[in-house]
């Protein structure tokens, strides 16, 4: 009996004193042969599965681009659908390697969660959707309204701030998932549905009669959405950060998924640097020299990704607006690759 207890104790002690998973995310991903990517539970345009179970969307393309850069195969991604309230725990616990799930960059999330934002994939802002039959034209007419919102989001806090700042009363009904929220809005439990404006357009497509609903003009917050990685692995942080920058740089230089092979042959010094025939930036990241070529082949440049998922080429048809390149009136700007 004593011997059994002792053996058990030793085994437990050994298990417990093993240190937390080491910081080499890239190695872990390579060994696993798969990138584990946290996405939403279904937000058209950002991350949602189609009828065959294939995931599409801007956030999904970020995952595909990272997998493309590492494995030269954008399909080597395992998608982990997460609710808004579970997403950070999944990242902290190591269940996912990167969180690419329409997550707003805020200081508290950047500092207290043990995770870092790597960039902004989509500049968004919070808006409101109402039934046209309510005859409301502005968010300032929403006094005493009932508002459906997804719990655990910045949306919930902005909502409280906005109504308080404008001295309006409201009733909040918070649901755990996006689908539950939309369903309650459609069932008439609330007058208003609020989330990031892109999400409003995306969710409107899910409603039975999209044209009976309208998005109000007010944008009440800044919602820069971007991917997150865990603290403590700078190499992995760099890879995720520069994957997005590579997509933006490719758009700047006019490199698309169709012409990338021809562009790589040109004698343009900047193109040679970016596309890897000159310098070894990719290797410094822990990737290969042709990392940008791989990314562009996997998903295209940022403009292609935007158009395909949320822009003109998609049912959402959202304007580029703030998400245009810096030299075309938008905010998307990548530091130089040199």
């Amino acid at each position, binding site marked *: 009996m004593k011997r059994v207890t002792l053996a058990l104790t030793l085994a437990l002690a050994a298990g417990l004193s093993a240190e937390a998973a080491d910081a080499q995310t890239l190695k872990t991903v390579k060994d696993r042969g798969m990138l584990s990517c946290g996405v939403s539970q279904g937000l058209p345009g950002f991350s949602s599965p189609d009828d065959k179970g294939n995931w599409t969307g801007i956030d999904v393309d970020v995952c595909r681009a990272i997998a493309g850069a590492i494995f030269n195969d954008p399909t080597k991604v395992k998608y982990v659908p997460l609710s808004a309230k579970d997403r950070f725990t999944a990242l902290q616990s190591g269940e996912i390697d990167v969180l690419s799930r329409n997550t707003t960059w805020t200081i508290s999330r950047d500092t207290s969660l043990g995770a870092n934002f790597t960039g902004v994939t989509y500049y968004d802002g919070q808006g409101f959707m109402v039934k046209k039959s309510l005859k409301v034209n502005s968010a300032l007419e929403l006094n005493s309204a009932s508002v459906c919102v997804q719990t*655990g989001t910045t949306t919930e806090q902005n*909502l409280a701030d906005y109504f308080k700042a404008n001295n309006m009363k409201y009733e*909040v009904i918070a649901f755990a998932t996006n689908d539950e929220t939309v369903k309650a809005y459609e069932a008439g439990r609330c007058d208003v549905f609020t989330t990031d404006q892109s999400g409003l357009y995306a969710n409107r497509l899910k409603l039975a009669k999209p044209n009976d609903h309208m998005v109000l003009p007010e944008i009440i917050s800044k919602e820069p959405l971007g991917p997150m990685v865990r603290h403590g692995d700078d190499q992995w942080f760099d890879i995720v950060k520069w994957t997005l920058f590579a997509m933006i740089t490719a758009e700047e230089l006019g490199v698309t998924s169709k012409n990338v092979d021809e562009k790589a042959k040109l004698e343009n010094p900047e193109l040679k640097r970016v596309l890897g025939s000159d310098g070894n930036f990719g290797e410094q990241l822990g990737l290969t020299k042709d990392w940008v070529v791989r990314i562009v082949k996997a998903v295209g440049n940022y403009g292609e990704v935007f158009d395909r998922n949320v822009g003109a080429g998609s049912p959402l048809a959202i304007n580029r607006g703030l998400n245009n390149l810096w030299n075309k009136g938008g905010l998307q700007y990548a530091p130089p690759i040199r």
Partner: protein
Amino acid sequence: MSTGARKPPPQIALKIRRILGGKAGWNGVAVQFAFAAVLGWIGYEIVSNARANLENQHIAAGFGFLRNNAGFDVNQTLIPYTGSDTFLRVFVVGLLNTLVVSVVGIVFATVIGFIVALCRLSPNWLLSRVGEIYVEVIRNLPLLFQILFWYLAVLAALPNPRQSISLLGITFISNRGLVIPRPVGESGLEPFLAMLALGIVGSLALRFYARRALFRQGRMVRIWPYVLGLLFGLPLVTMLVSGLPLSFEMPQLKGFNFAGGSRIIPEFVALTVALSTYTAAFIAEIVRAGILSVHKGQMEAGSSLGLSRGATLRLIVVPQAMRVIVPPLTNQYLNLTKNSSLAVAIGYPDLVSVFAGTSLSQTGQAIEIIAMTMGIYLLISLLTSAVMSVYGWRVSRSLGA
């Protein structure tokens, strides 16, 4: 060799040896202490390991966040709460919401459960079949499904506030919930309450006196006219003297919603209905088993004394059945309380939803928040068990068992 009488070993040491060591004596005690030390050490390792890892990853730790501003609103609060209150207050708000739905659910579940059990035991063929069908349907469907059913069924059936169903023009039912006039205390409230309390105390004293007269001297004392007078007459007279105790704030449709009045949100209704009907199916079976466990000779003895079926059940069978019923009934109460955490599916702001859900994702402090939530559920459950144990003990004692 000493010939003096042997001293008896010290009682306390003996007791410790017997409790801890069992047959193994002092060796056993040593093993127990070693085991406790190992358990303590494992606990310490787990805590310090978690702390070190959180530190390494720069994840905020500790309970300081409870003093921070929560920054979000909750749609049912039993105590005043706004978005600028702290997370600690969110915790209390959520806890109260959990408790209110549990208590109301337990009351309804018990009442429905007893009624269904009596239906099943009834000699009336139709009643007993209805009871049987109720139990078999309800207890064989998943609870989450039933909660969603009630929520979506309630919402779908009700009109929007502008076309709400009005009862006498003072109570309104719509898909925003049930709006009733809100009682507001007036100057007559305090004397009214004082007289009501006096009436209740007086009635209890009368009942005590009547029972004593019955048991000691075999006299039946008619007390109900006095009780009526004390409970209703006294407060009524006070009202005439010092004015109405309450006035009512009437709900009025303003803009999107009702202003004024009190409101019961549909999430609460759906959750309470689902929890109480579901648990009632189990309670019905427990009550039926309890009643069947009482020998049928008791029933026959009751009717041979000329008692009606109802009186036999109430005075003879149910008190004996309670001994069998109480322990599993406690389990059902605990289940109902714990099942109330499914509220998160329909947006009812219970503890799990607002604290272990929203607050967790706002602060990211999973370990602290989950530990607090688990701790409070454990405490609620232990308290419920304790109360039910005392009740069970009293039931057994009154039967002389």
